[in-house]
């Protein structure tokens, strides 16, 4: 093979890569915080919530888990404006990621809640706590602890999946790679470098989540 790799373009285009990386980081931070919050709420509904809300959440979860993220993104960005819901590409990307992670984390967190021994609910009740107080103060934290590894993996998957938001012109890392390949005609190298950045981000994100888990579930004195 007579191809010569050339990474000289990096000197010219690294600001694009940095900018794109930063956008990807922002996307996953917003997506993770609100997505997991949505997931906690939906998990509460499915495991313990009011009966009338359960079918609505079930349909939402099944619809999202059984359709591609790309189509969810297109539906939100291209489809919703015909209902009068116009939004910018970044908002659409944020919304799509929150909705997507919300559905997946709902199922993961629900499994954690359902693994709670019945005695924990009864102990909460016998201490005169309401069902919601028992969920909030007794059940939630140990449930999250149980499923934290699975939840962390899902957040990483959503971060990697965010690369398709470049398709609606969000200027993320993939967008930067596309831009560079169109300017420098060094397609393979451009994608190679950005893939490497994604891999680094995935590793760092996993470490960050491990750290957060450690703090969240840390044993501390009750004062």
């Amino acid at each position, binding site marked *: *093979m007579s*191809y010569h790799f050339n990474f000289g373009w990096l000197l010219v285009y690294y600001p694009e890569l940095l900018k794109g990386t930063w956008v990807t980081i922002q996307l996953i931070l917003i997506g993770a915080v609100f997505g997991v919050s949505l997931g906690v709420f939906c998990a509460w509904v499915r495991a313990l919530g009011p009966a009338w809300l359960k079918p609505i959440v079930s349909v939402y979860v*099944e*619809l999202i*888990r*059984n*359709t*591609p*993220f*790309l*189509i*969810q993104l*297109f*539906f939100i960005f*291209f*489809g*919703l*404006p*015909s*209902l009068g819901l116009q939004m910018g590409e970044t908002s659409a990307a944020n919304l799509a990621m929150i909705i997507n992670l919300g559905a997946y984390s709902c199922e993961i967190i629900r499994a954690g809640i359902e693994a709670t021994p019945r005695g924990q609910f009864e102990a909460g009740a016998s201490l005169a706590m309401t069902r919601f107080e028992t969920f909030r103060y007794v059940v939630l934290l140990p449930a999250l602890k149980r499923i934290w590894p699975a939840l962390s993996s899902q957040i*990483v998957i959503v971060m*990697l*999946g*965010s*690369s*398709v938001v470049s*398709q609606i012109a969000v200027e993320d890392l*993939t967008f930067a*790679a596309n831009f560079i*390949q169109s300017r420098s005609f060094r*397609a*393979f190298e451009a*994608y*190679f470098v*950005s*893939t490497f950045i*994604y*891999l680094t981000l*995935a*590793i760092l994100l996993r470490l960050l989540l491990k750290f957060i888990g450690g703090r969240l579930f840390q044993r501390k004195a009750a004062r």
Partner: protein
Amino acid sequence: MTQFTLWDIFRNLLLATRWTILLSLVSFLGGGILGLILLFMRIGHNRAAQFFSKIYVEIFQGTPLLMQLFLAFFGLGLFGINVPAWLAAGVALIAWTAAFLVEIWRGCVESVASGQWEAAASLGMGYLQQMRYVILPQALKIAVAPTVGFSVQVIKGTALTSIIGFVELSKAGSVVTNATFQPFTVYGLVALLYFALCWPLSKSSQILERKLNVAHRNH
């Protein structure tokens, strides 16, 4: 401008769905075979093979499928071949699917209690015999539900091949949208078609898992 009926849209999407199904099947089968090879490398006794399998999974699970598609598309081109989109799509999806299946299956093999290995060894079985007659039959039973479950991820993964120009359901959705200017209807239908493909698999995976759990509780 010609007027498109709902049926026109639906028929076009349905035709493209064939390619989504075909690509999913190829990816799943190819990924399964490659995954099996990587699985044996991972659970075997060769250190180098173990390491390779581990790094393989790290890389393919740690990078976006879209990037893998781009790299396959442009990387294969470096060999001087004019790469058709379907080839890059197939190669990348097989490689990606394999990485996830190895991890799922490795979990199943490891979930077979260590007492089973010891019992088999105590009966004088060699490593391969232990694997063949004791561990794999048990692991296989556990593996069915999550494997069926992962096939849903493969189908959804094929949607990304539209970005490198493979014409399947998602690409057809974009093409039809551009022709009809009815993104809400078209992408809604596209989503429903994906749902029709994925949901039965998701459900069967859940049912299989529940059955297995019940069977285990009775033991």
